[in-house]
């Protein structure tokens, strides 16, 4: 479905009520980042929806409070967000294709760097094969790039190509993990969440590109902290969930 400007603008109401489907939501949020009147209208309508919420108040079961307070004791709070990227929803728009090409060059350089220090012929061949696969994604006419901050600091950059059904992920500035932990990537789709590889040990705070195949419609990219070696299902809350639409 394609939407014109007017069509997008009339989504303010259903957006404020959370009555919008995920794909359309992503498209609308992209539009919101560039449409100040829409942003103001959404705020007013969201405050209005809050009136509806407050009108539905019901006394909760008394035992709930103790459970919540106990859970609070066991739950670590998020640190304040970096002020410069405090509005991720409005700032994670896909970069235009030209910028993608420039970023692609640095990705290839990173991949080449990752190959340094490989000793055996087999390792080098594998690194070359991976670089070729990465180059194929970067060269795809529909290749797009997107960067988003994680909740724990640092950023992840994803290059995706729907035609190749692949994504490439690099990161910069993620918090250092103890040796027994690893960052694991996920393709989180409406039907299922699939493993998409482990982030390698960072060099100067950056991780070499990881290539993942099998990208499906509606997939989002997730990152979690897992035990070394990785797991088959996420066991911790994601520090990043990146929508690939919009």
């Amino acid at each position, binding site marked *: 479905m394609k939407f014109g400007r007017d069509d997008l603008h009339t989504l303010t109401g259903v957006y404020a009520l959370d*009555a919008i489907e995920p794909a359309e939501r992503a498209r609308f949020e992209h539009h919101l980042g560039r449409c100040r009147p829409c942003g103001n209208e959404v705020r007013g309508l969201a405050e*209005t929806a809050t009136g509806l919420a407050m009108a539905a*108040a019901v006394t909760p079961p008394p035992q709930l409070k103790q459970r919540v307070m106990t859970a609070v004791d066991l739950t670590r709070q998020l640190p304040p967000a970096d002020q410069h990227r405090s509005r991720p929803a409005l700032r994670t728009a896909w970069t235009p294709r030209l910028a993608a090409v420039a970023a692609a060059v640095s990705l290839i350089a990173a991949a080449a760097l990752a190959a340094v220090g490989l000793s055996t012929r087999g390792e080098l061949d594998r690194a070359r094969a991976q670089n070729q696969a990465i180059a194929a994604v970067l060269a795809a006419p529909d290749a797009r790039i997107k960067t988003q901050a994680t909740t724990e600091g640092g950023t992840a950059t994803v290059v995706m190509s729907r035609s190749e059904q692949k994504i490439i992920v690099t990161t910069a500035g993620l918090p250092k993990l103890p040796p027994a932990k690893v960052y694991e990537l996920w393709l989180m789709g409406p039907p299922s969440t699939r493993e998409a590889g482990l982030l390698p040990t960072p060099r100067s705070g950056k991780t070499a590109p990881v290539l993942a195949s099998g990208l499906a419609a509606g997939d989002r990219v997730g990152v979690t902290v897992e035990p070394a070696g990785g797991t088959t299902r996420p066991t911790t809350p994601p520090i990043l969930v990146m929508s690939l639409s919009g």
Partner: protein
Amino acid sequence: MNGRELRAVRPGPGSAEGRDQDLDRLLGLVTRGDKDAFEAVYDRMAGPVYGLIRRVIRDPAQSEEVTQEVLLEVWRTASRFDAARGSATTWMMTIAHRRAVDRVRSAAATAERERRCAQPEAAADEVAETVAANLDAERVRHCLGGLNELQRESITLAYYGGYSYPQVAQLLGTALGTVKTRIRDGLIRMRDCMGVNW
């Protein structure tokens, strides 16, 4: 009372605005790990959060579970609340509604819920039942009453019913575009009626 009169009233301790400012302040303390402040947030907001979730999910056990998740998320992510982007109350109720909707839209919940909510017309009446409780609610009821039937039904099905607007269109046998614009028109009308300051 119309929107203009409300806007002219200075926010006192009992007004919605006064309460919002207080909640802002409490969330600031929560950010620093203040459990007493969180308890105060709980005392103030657990009712609205649970009530909204209960309205959407219906099942009391699941509603309780989701309410706990939401309140814990408020504790965990308090530092991400940004007063420049909206009120503290709206920040919390948006999390609550989003979570409730996620729960009912997950495939497993759908079948069971459809069995229970075969009567979409009930939604508007139920609002009337719950309201009597407080002044805010009285105002909401009054403003809902000022909408035409399609606007009111679309809004209550979408918000309290947790339906997406294409589902609302299907339930009401109305065109998609019509539901979309009725919801927007109705909300704008309610916004003006309620004297929302945006």
